[in-house]
């Protein structure tokens, strides 16, 4: 719930501020106590909440899948193995459907992306005030529990995928092939002079489309989750506006949460599928 002393905009702002660790203006290191302080810390700061939740969820994912993999049996699978196999077969099918080359890294990449993003998105369904409230008891004032509403997390993954794209593009096609893809397409001409004019135009177009891939990956996920989170926060504000609005807010929250289950899964799936497709493009001449 919004604290009595907070206005709505302060409440929203409070919810949208990460727990930031960095260097204060006076040169000492510590946790930022306000959004302004966090912003002032600049680049050399770290969001403890984003890191904590993403690592916790990633660790959870790896723990359960590792457990399933360690006790894997070719006979009748148990519950956990069954579940993991179901997911793995689903991912494998997606990868087979979109990825035509051979690379053992792509399927585990897709699995990691899908489950990790799904779990991070899932935190959005926890009522927005619960975890910050619990954190408040321990003297932690800022707590953003959904790592995917932090662009650092989405860009981190998108850059990871982008790095792999560049790596495999150059590995498969060679540096010359890769540069050729950037400069000799989409406009080509038999005339060398005209071709020379086309090269910068092509480069501009292709470079933008290349850069757009990770940016769109990251921003799509971030935007969707941020907007979803924002709506949950706005609904939560209604709880302070009387019984009738509060009840209405409860209904809205339920409805939005149910709808959000779809968005959560869909965004994880889209990120995964696009990553697979981009990896496929990196492996194929086009």
């Amino acid at each position, binding site marked *: 719930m919004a604290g009595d002393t907070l206005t709505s905009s302060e409440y929203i702002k409070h919810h949208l501020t990460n727990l930031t660790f960095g260097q204060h203006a006076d040169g000492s290191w510590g946790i930022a106590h306000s959004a302004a302080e966090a912003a002032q810390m600049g680049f050399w700061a770290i969001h403890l909440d984003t890191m904590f939740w993403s690592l916790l969820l990633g660790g959870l994912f790896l723990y359960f899948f590792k457990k399933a993999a360690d006790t894997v049996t070719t006979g009748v699978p148990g519950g956990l193995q069954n579940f993991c196999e179901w997911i793995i077969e689903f991912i494998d099918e997606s990868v087979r459907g979109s990825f035509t080359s051979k690379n053992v*890294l792509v399927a585990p990449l897709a699995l990691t992306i899908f489950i990790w993003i799904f779990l991070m998105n899932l935190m959005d369904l926890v009522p927005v005030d619960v975890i910050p409230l619990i954190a408040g008891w321990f003297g932690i004032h800022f707590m953003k529990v959904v790592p995917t509403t932090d662009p650092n997390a989405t860009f981190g993954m998108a850059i990871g995928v982008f790095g792999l794209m560049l790596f495999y593009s150059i590995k498969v096609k060679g540096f010359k092939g890769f540069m050729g893809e950037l400069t000799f397409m989409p406009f080509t001409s038999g005339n060398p002079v005209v071709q020379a004019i086309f090269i910068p135009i092509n480069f501009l177009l292709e470079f933008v489309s290349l850069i757009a891939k990770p940016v769109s990956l990251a921003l799509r996920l971030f935007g969707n989750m941020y907007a979803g989170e924002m709506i949950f926060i706005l609904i939560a504000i209604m709880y302070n506006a009387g019984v009738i609005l509060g009840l209405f807010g409860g209904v809205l929250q339920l409805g939005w949460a149910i709808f959000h289950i779809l968005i959560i899964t869909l965004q994880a799936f889209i990120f995964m599928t696009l990553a697979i497709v981009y990896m496929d493009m990196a492996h194929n001449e086009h």
Partner: protein
Amino acid sequence: MNINLTLFGQLVSFGVFVWFTLKYVWTPMMGALEERRNGIADSLSAAEKGKHDEVLARQHAKEILMEAKNQASEIKAQGEKRASEIVDEAKEEARAEGERLLTAARAEIDQEVNRVREQLRERVATLAVAGAEKILQREIDAAAHKGVVDSVANQI
């Protein structure tokens, strides 16, 4: 929306997660799935083979049964033939034996008849002589009339 060091933290975590997934999750799980798939394929083909074998075995059994039936009927026919042969032989033997016995009996009877006739002849001769002696008393000389008496006796 502050881009800061968290970006690298996330990037590195992501990389580690992917590596971990590849090494400790994906590879063993896919291995197990592959192994199970192969196992199922093997079982299916084994079942198929078993079915095929069963059909073959059934056919084989049918053939054996048919052969046995044929043999049995052949043996039966042979047996019947042999039995009728034996009966015929026995009949033949019995007939021959009967004939032999009959012949022997006839011979014996003939012998007996001849013997009896001889005795009878002698008796009749003696009786006739005695009768004639009585009737003629002295007139009859046995030695002189023996030829007459014998011819009478022979007529009997």
